């Protein structure tokens, strides 16, 4: 390689680094195994022009398969399957069998959490999922929920939007003894 070629190569490398400063760090950081385990989420948005809410649990098997249990605007709890494909830059695509809605998910090398957005026309839904267990079969009992918890949310009652914030005490035996709630002001 002559000196002119070396300079050309060096110049090209610098140009690439300037244009894509994170390219070298992003390479091969993520794969399907990055998101593996049980994740929980709560999401809001608009679907077919109406307010849409959904909370649920996703079990990612680390091989491109998802088992999704969720409760949405209908008030029903549904179990469905899905699939995902993680790219090396930690951006992935997911699709669920029941709805056919496509999502794009953004995570990092640890896969401990990710954000997502629907990309199917007619849907404007977004959320964030957090890994709560590396197990594909997480175990809980009444004792799991024990202590004082706080929350706030925006909801709709009879079509009217309301806000609520509160504190709840779970006793580890099946009772919520002293919920304190501040509904819409």
């Amino acid at each position, binding site marked *: 390689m002559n000196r002119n070629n070396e300079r050309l190569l060096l110049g090209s490398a610098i140009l690439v680094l300037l244009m894509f400063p994170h390219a070298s760090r992003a390479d091969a950081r993520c794969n399907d195994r990055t998101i593996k385990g049980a994740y929980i989420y709560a999401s809001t948005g608009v679907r077919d022009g109406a307010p849409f809410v959904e909370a649920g649990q996703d079990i990612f098997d680390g091989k491109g398969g998802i088992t999704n249990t969720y409760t949405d605007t209908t008030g029903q*709890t549904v179990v469905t399957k899905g699939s995902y494909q993680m790219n090396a830059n930690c951006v992935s695509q997911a699709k669920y069998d029941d709805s056919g809605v496509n999502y794009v998910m953004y995570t990092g090398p640890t896969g401990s959490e990710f954000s997502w957005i629907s990309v199917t026309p007619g849907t404007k839904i977004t959320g964030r999922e957090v890994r*709560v267990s590396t197990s594909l079969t997480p175990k809980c009992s009444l004792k799991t929920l024990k202590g004082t918890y706080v929350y706030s949310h925006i909801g709709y009652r009879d079509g009217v939007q309301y806000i609520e914030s509160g504190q709840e005490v779970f006793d580890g035996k099946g009772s919520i003894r002293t919920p304190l709630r501040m509904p819409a002001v």
Partner: protein
Amino acid sequence: MTVTTAGTYLMGDYCIGGTRYQDTGDTYSVYVDPNGDSFTYASMTSRSGNLAVGSERRVGKQVK
């Protein structure tokens, strides 16, 4: 206006459970962290016109 009431909860397989509150009769599905530090919820009472979703975080382990 602060409301004080009571409720009950159940826990099923794979950390998926439910809550119910006496004052409104509202029920929710809950999706729980096995460590108990957090959970997400969505209302199950669409018939009563309640539509809500959110998450809760534990701020203390004492039960008083």
